[in-house]
């Protein structure tokens, strides 16, 4: 069933590639079908059952590479996030004409194929293949449908992330060499390696740089704002909503259990970098004039908190990180959609040129502020539960760092409310005087997002309980391998 889930989008991409003008609608139908499959898997998932839907057979036997996939609570949630968001992203693109739609939508579907693959892979090489595969369609989307400077910006993005992934490849091959007998890329074998502390330090840095660039963590973030602003909105949504979660997911699945001693040594550095990034990016968001760029920087801040929480290795930190990945995905896609609607209607995202939208489009303003409030973590929205658990986790690790990271809840209110005021409140001007109210199609994108915002805000337990046992198992394996390192040393 999992293999079906992984390859179904690839099939969809092929169909879409040959369907000309109607590619968008076909992609949407396939996207919804994919979501239905993932829901079906959710219903048959047992949170206490460890890895499920597993499949394992040789791919390149001589090199110890196998097609090994499976889902636990954490990866299932990531897959669900992907299958939930992709149809919405496709639907959200219908208001704008994209040239060569067949290619556009099939690239989105290939992207989904790679993303589901990344979240399901349990073999190091397979993981790497999906990881790199995800880069190509998004690169092309940003390059071909992006703004004026797309060539320069996407090239930087491409080289930056490729550099990171090559480091990861080095680490994977090195780990492969350490496996006993005929070497293997099996994750279980990696988990059982008994590495010395200094070896783990090396693994930590190789993985960390790859993942840190992807998320991105300060100071590896400068590719991100330009890319987010310049890409076509569906591309930005894929990048920010799902793709950056590959980085955090990589940390949880590959970095923490393999190099716990590396974390012990370098985790503090990683958290400090994350916390600096939170404050730094929040401050920068305050002085932005372009709404899309503001969201881009606020996203760096949010991801910084996720990263800090995960590296705290506390239960609440990791579980909060998983939940916040979902919430952030939902909120950031919502915000970029709002930005897209504004630019479709007024042809600008410059906040100083906007204002008074609420007068003629009160519904638009209501949806906008709900998503904004979720992203500044108001209780009973999804953002609160995640940030509360994350900060709680960081606090258990180091209360001073938590207090500094916590400043972001103030700064986020500063830049978010300011943006809302400049865009929606005040008197209308020439650009906004005839701002049309939301169409039914646009509401179809926003309503599911809003429902999830409140659902996760009020009943987070429904998701937390899926991830809980897996987080526990993860923590268990971290302490176990940390113990082994200690014995060895």
């Amino acid at each position, binding site marked *: 069933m999992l293999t079906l889930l992984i390859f179904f989008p690839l099939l969809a991409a092929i169909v879409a590639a040959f369907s000309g003008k109607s590619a968008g609608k076909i992609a949407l139908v396939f996207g919804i079908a994919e979501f239905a499959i993932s829901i079906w898997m959710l219903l048959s998932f047992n949170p206490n059952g460890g890895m499920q839907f597993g499949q394992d057979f040789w791919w390149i036997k001589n090199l110890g590479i196998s097609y090994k996939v499976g889902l636990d609570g954490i990866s299932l949630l990531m897959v669900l996030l992907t299958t939930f968001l992709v149809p919405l992203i496709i639907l959200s693109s219908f208001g704008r004409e994209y040239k060569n739609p067949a290619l556009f939508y099939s690239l989105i579907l290939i992207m989904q194929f790679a993303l589901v693959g990344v979240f399901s892979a349990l073999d190091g090489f397979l993981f790497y293949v999906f990881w790199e595969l995800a880069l190509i369609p998004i690169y092309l989307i940003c390059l071909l449908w992006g703004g004026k400077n797309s060539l320069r910006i996407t090239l*930087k993005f491409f*080289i*930056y992330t*490729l*550099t990171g992934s090559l*480091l990861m490849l080095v680490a994977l091959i090195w780990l492969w060499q350490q496996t006993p007998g005929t070497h293997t890329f099996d994750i279980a074998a990696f988990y059982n390696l008994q590495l010395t502390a200094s070896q783990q330090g090396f693994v930590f*840095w190789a993985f960390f*740089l790859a993942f840190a660039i992807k998320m991105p963590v300060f*100071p590896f973030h*400068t*590719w991100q704002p330009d890319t987010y602003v310049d890409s076509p909105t569906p591309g930005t949504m894929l990048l920010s909503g799902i793709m950056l979660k590959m980085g955090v997911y990589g940390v949880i699945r590959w970095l923490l259990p393999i190099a716990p001693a590396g974390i012990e040594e370098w985790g503090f*550095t990683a958290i400090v970098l994350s916390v600096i990034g939170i404050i*730094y990016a929040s*401050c*920068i968001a*305050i*002085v*932005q004039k372009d709404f899309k760029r503001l969201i881009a920087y606020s996203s760096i801040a949010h991801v910084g908190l996720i990263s800090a929480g995960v590296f705290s290795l506390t*239960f*609440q930190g990791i*579980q*909060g990180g998983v939940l916040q990945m979902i919430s952030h995905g939902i909120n950031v896609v919502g915000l970029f959609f709002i930005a897209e609607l504004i630019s479709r209607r007024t042809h600008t995202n410059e906040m100083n040129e906007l204002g*008074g939208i*609420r*007068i003629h489009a009160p519904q638009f303003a209501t949806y906008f502020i709900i998503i904004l*409030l979720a992203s500044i973590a*108001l*209780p*009973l929205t999804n953002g*609160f*539960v995640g940030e*509360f*658990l994350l*900060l*709680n986790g960081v*606090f*258990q690790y180091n*209360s001073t760092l*938590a*207090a500094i990271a*916590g*400043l972001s*809840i*103030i700064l986020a*209110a*500063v830049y978010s*409310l*300011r943006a809302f*005021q400049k865009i*929606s*409140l*005040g*008197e209308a001007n020439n650009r906004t005087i005839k701002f049309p109210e939301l169409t039914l199609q646009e509401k179809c994108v926003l309503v599911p997002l809003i429902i999830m915002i409140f659902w996760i805000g*009020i009943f*987070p*337990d429904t998701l*937390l*309980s899926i991830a*809980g046992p897996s987080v*526990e198992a993860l923590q268990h394996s971290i302490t176990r391998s940390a113990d082994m390192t200690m014995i060895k040393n």
Partner: protein
Amino acid sequence: MIQLAWLILVFPLAGFFLISFGKSIMKGQSAGIVASLTVFASFILSALIFFSLPETPQNIHLFNWIQSGSLTIPFSILIDRISIIMLLIITGVGFLIHVYSIGYMKGDEGYSRFFSYLNLFVFFMLILVMASDYVFLFAGWEGVGLCSYLLIGFWFKNTEYNKAANKAFIMNRIGDLGFLLGIFLMYVTFGSTTFENVFSAASGYSSNQGVIVAITMLLFIGAMGKSAQIPLYTWLPDAMAGPTPVSALIHAATMVTAGIYMIVRSNILYSLAPFTLDFIAIIGTATAVLAALIAMVQTDIKKVLAYSTVSQLGYMFVALGAGAYSSSLFHVTTHAFFKALLFLAAGSVIHAMSGEQNINRMGGLRKKLPITYFVFLIGTLAIAGIPPFAGFFSKDEILSKVYLQHPTLFIVLAITSVLTAIYMFRVFFLTFYGTFRGTHDQAHHLHESPPVMTTPLIILAILSTLGGFLGMPAVFGSTNKIEHFLHESVSFPVAWSQQEPTHAFEWILMLTSVIILAIIIILTYRRFATQQILVSDNEGEQSTPVKLAYRKFYVDELYNSVITKPLNALSGFFYKSIDTKLIDGFVNSIGKGITSGSSFLRLAQTGYVGFYIFAMVFGLIAILLYNLVIK
């Protein structure tokens, strides 16, 4: 009956949804009527529960909200003697204000939106006082902050109002961060955030133990924001940008007392931290006197009342600081009556004056607005502390309790209560006595408000007259009902010796204050009713001390230059210098150096090496820093 307590929450929430989604069906004033009825239903239910209240606190578990490892946060509500008092105030006074708003907001284009926000506010406020867990309480705490933001900026076309709304939200967030950190420390210390568990675990700690002091201080930071204490008080006067019923409900009677409620609720923790209590008493006193001084010279009727609220909140905090939790809650109650009354009466004046709020342009209104005049008089008598009106009993109780614990603060507070009487009678005489100083047009339109507005005023006037008898002290031969009612629910710092004020002291205090108040009334009458001496709005004509208080001691300007401007400068520096030039410039220079001699393919290859050097350099720096600085 008590098992149905969750319905108290459901009614206003249902009202919110009905009004929000039924906008097209709700014609005329039906939104206001629906909103009022839902709050009234909650009031009736609260009253029924009050009369059948069991001896022990009742926990009603709804469902588990957050469950993460050993952290469990339930959605469960707690009904006990503290929460029932708050419930009655919120739903009772809230209902009256809803009814008043039906008339006040008539004809506003956002009429139904106003009532949906008001209902949502009541819902969150009820969560705040019914929660049985700090995190659940925090949900209500931030929820009321949201509604406050929405209602301050209710007339959203006005940029100044929007700025006031943002300021309120952000200042509250500063406090909320303290609150959150307090919750985290609580979880780390006691392993739970639920009242029951926290309080029973805390009993094992001794007085003034560091961690307890830290928790109580952090929670108090939250209270400073929500209840507008120094240094986080400047948002409240600005919050008067909202419609007047909002000022009455949120920024006088209910939300701003949330900080006091939270500390009363946590009295077990606070009694273990006399250090924090002393700190609270000092902050409260300073706030009370500072705000009273500013109120002396303000010319906007709502601003005077706003600073008066800040000042009265200060009183309540001093009471907390003296360990007199029940006295504080008593003052919360009477203040809810008379301050809601004063705000609504001021609203009636503003209504009659076609939106004018400056008392310099009022005068002689008692003939045109007889009911408003009469109820405003009662409100003034109550807040000034004239027997037998409500404020007299609650304020005297606080003063005598403070005298026992902090004699120095007592003197400051006593002076503040003199100031209170002066600024209130100043407003009262300038508004209702003397000659009319407004325009001809305004004079022409002067009219008493309709019964839908005056009826709530009259009821609140009755409550402000009789409310004090709830806490009539023993010196009059009766029992102090509120104190008795709360006796089991509040503790007292063990480190302090609990004394009762002697009857002789209480008599002296009361007689002195009555004599002083009588003198003040005579003097203010001569100065403001007969001579009509005004504070000019032209700063050139003000004497230096007046100007200082008129400009609110330049605190806003101070914050602007110490916090806002440096933050913006720092952010700009981060963006332009660090991000664009330093980091991105560095990254690009690697790329550029390589591009100059290579094809695209080779760029990808060598780019890797170049970056590897960058990574190594960065790693080396990180290692060095780590070893030098951190270890």
